[in-house]
């Protein structure tokens, strides 16, 4: 899809046209599975948190593992980024999706795959044309929250139609410039780390979370509760799916993390935060987190995607 984006930009450019945007000067690689180069950070600097990313780019890391128990992977991960520079720069754009399927018998992975792809397709179809239009005269740009709502509704319809017995969590993050628009159903989580603090952005749509909010369970009880993975909201559940959608501005240098419960139910939040702080790179952090979940038993598929804003 990113190639598609690059190709499109190239075709849009015609000599002599003043209104069309110039070619991007660089592109980030969403499929980066190679660790990023070390940035000369000394080990003793780890409390200074971050290797400085290049100041004008997203830095993306991602990792996925089937875990120690399961034989197949029901998690899906998508990451797209795009940028355009020149006289009228386009805002950086990133779309990151994690879906964790359920239903067994291949239904889970089909559900998560269809949901992730549908969400990405609807978002990109609605956002890309305006992204590449001249911001000085384009005032027909869609509402990003509505696009996300539309996309998650379409993902739900498609899963209901094609995998009626399956279901999936679905968490999508669209970043345009420094604005984050997050849509969310299920218990995949999104966190943001900024100014040294880690904050959970999503609310689990799970029975135990609801019981915790009602004061009926403590965190410790919830962590071992036999029904801790029972969801009351999931893509594929049929009519009336209500997704959480929030928009929020990310401060420069913030890190967005999206991960499946294969990570967060095994590795406590403060350890996630610590691993991220002590990792030499975003990609390294993703790999360390997956390793930590596997070392804790890895009973489920583990997926994590991380993006750091320029800052």
């Amino acid at each position: 899809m990113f190639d598609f984006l690059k190709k499109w930009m190239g075709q849009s450019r015609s000599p002599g046209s003043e209104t069309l945007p110039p070619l991007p000067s660089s592109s980030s690689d969403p499929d980066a599975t190679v660790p990023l180069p070390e940035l000369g950070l000394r080990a003793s600097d780890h409390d200074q948190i971050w290797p400085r990313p290049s100041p004008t780019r997203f830095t993306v890391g991602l990792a996925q593992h089937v875990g120690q128990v399961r034989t197949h992977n029901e998690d899906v991960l998508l990451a797209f980024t795009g940028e355009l520079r020149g006289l009228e720069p386009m805002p950086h754009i990133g779309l990151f999706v994690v879906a964790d399927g359920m239903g067994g018998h291949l239904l889970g992975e089909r559900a998560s795959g269809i949901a992730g792809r549908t969400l990405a397709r609807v978002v990109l179809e609605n956002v890309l044309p305006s992204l590449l239009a001249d911001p000085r005269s384009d005032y027909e740009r869609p509402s990003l929250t509505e696009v996300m709502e539309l996309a998650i509704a379409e993902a739900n319809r498609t899963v209901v139609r094609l995998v009626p017995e399956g279901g999936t969590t679905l968490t999508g993050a669209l970043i345009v410039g420094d604005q984050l628009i997050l849509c969310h159903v299920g218990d995949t989580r999104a966190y943001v780390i900024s100014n040294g603090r880690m904050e959970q952005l999503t609310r689990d749509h799970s029975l135990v979370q609801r019981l915790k909010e009602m004061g009926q369970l403590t965190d410790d009880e919830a962590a071992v509760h036999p029904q801790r993975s029972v969801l009351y909201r999931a893509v594929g559940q049929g009519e009336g799916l209500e997704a959480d959608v929030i928009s929020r501005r990310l401060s420069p240098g913030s890190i967005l993390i999206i991960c499946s419960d294969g990570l967060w139910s095994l590795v406590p939040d403060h350890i996630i935060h610590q691993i991220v702080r002590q990792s030499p790179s975003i990609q390294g952090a993703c790999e360390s987190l997956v390793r930590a979940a596997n070392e804790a038993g890895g009973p489920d598929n583990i997926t994590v995607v991380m993006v750091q804003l320029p800052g």
Partner: protein
Amino acid sequence: MFDARKATRSVTHRLQNAGDGSLKPGSILQNRYSIIKVLGVGGMGSVYQARDLRFPNVTKYVAVKEIINIADPSMREMVAKIFEREANTLASLDHPAIPKIYDYFNQSDRSFLVMEFIDGKDLETYLNEFPGLLSEDVVIGWAIELCDVLSYLHNHKDKDGKPDPIIFRDLKPSNIMLDQHGSIRLIDFGIARAYQAGQKGTMIGTEGYSPPEQYRGEASPAGDIYALGATLHHLLTKQDPRIEPPFTFAERPIRKSNPSVSLELESIIMTALNYNPAERFASAEAMKQALKTLRRRISGSLSRPAGTGRIETAATGAASQARPTEGPALVNLSEVTPLWVFRCEDEIRASPVVSGAFVYVGAYDNNLYAVNAADGKLAWKYATDGGLPAPPVIHQDNLYIGSEDHRLHAVSAKSGRLQWTYYADGPIRAAPRFADGHIFFGADDHYLHVVNATTGRKAWRYQASDVIRCRPVVSGDRVYFGCESGEFYAIDLRAERKWMFRAKRGITSSPLLHNGTLYVCSLDGMIYALDASSGWRLWQFRTNKPILSSPTIDGNLLLVGSADNHLYAIDIRNGREAWRFATNGQVNSSPAVIGGTVYVGSVDHSLYAIDVASGRLRWKFTAKGPITSSPAIANNVVYIGSFDHHLYALTA
């Protein structure tokens, strides 16, 4: 609900497969029970309808419940125990709503329970097949019977006569049968257990109907009362709690989906559904008595001609309970007395501004007044040659105000002495903004003017496509403003356009910049949230009439009035409505917030003080004319002007 634990899923799957292939019709058990058909497949095996062959001359049906083999020995043992417990429980019970047990045996590694065959339908099936909504009196009848059997179980005594309460633990429509006589019968005692106070058990039950404490392993009579409440809620609303977010009965009022239900029944069911077991009915018997009292009253009122008395009472009650934020008439208010009142010679449409010891306000009598904030005495007034529809801006010692006389006036804030004036090519009806030593303001000549605050000389101007009536936002090197044809501009300080947005109608309301997002309201009735750096729309929210009011933000709530008579509170994270407050006139005044209270005027002559968190009215003050002016607040005093020519000072 989805169960993400594949282990559970696969176990269920295996059981079902085994159950499917279990006993064929015609199979005979113990030379006595001839299988006729499968009645249902459960988690642990099947239930069959069978004929008892010991009665050759009559057709006597029985229900045969089977437990199939499970490979896992520990699981098998657990299931066998549950089954045996069910048999023992049933054998010790005698109540018309509880099926009788006839026999219990093992055969070829399976266990069987032979019970009374109930010829009827379970309530879940009944509900699904019933067109429309069930009526209240039918459901009350069932509820009374259910309370009766629960009461019997909860007051069960062991063979020595000691209390030995039995908790049903899984009350839900599919475990309740309606027999051929229309009576209620409880089925599936598989998980019913004797209750020992304080002892924790395993969580078994059905999500959606089970009480919160059951998830901690606590089963008590109060849990059955909760499940009964959940069942009744489901029956009356047709909303299946298994597919709704858990524990949201209170958020889904029964009468909202089934308005024929009385307030009393709703209240009885909600009492049963209290999160806190101690706040539910003390016993099933107590709930039964409440239901019986209600039934007597309803049958009494129904016998009256038309029987409308009850509905009227209920309707009134609902209005005050369900919509507490709407309609000031419903709230008992003490009117507020102003600290002082200052009279101008014409209407005050603009908002006052407080600075230092003075309140400044422009009026349609062409005067700008400086009034002593403490006592409302006139300090000075400054006359222009036109009406003053917009508030001034004050920077250091100077005050800047636009007039319909085409001029921006700079006067001394202390004395009202003229410093300079600047001429636009049309009336100025927009409020100015001070930034970087300059005054930014729009005018009816279509220009955004940028004027040096010290000298009054033009720095630059930018032509919009129509009249500008809103106050611009200046931040960093960007200037944001809208015009009356709906265009909204983001330009830089060199007057170059960075991006543009277009609403469907004019933008009179002043935009608000908050944490990188611009909130722009339009005469098209919409609130738009735009990313300030790119102009991308983050969300939009529709009110029903034009918005002239300018928004303000408190916490995560954006507050703005609309000509549809409401003040809205919108969650700025997603554009969803938190609450709305109804007045009796257009809300064109801009709200102001202090200390958790939002103050806003309405064309209905009132100034409202509303709790920001809940949207509930705290107090109101009624002037003698419409209020379009926005309140100014300082030192716990609210200053507000009205079309009745007065400026009022009120204690916040």
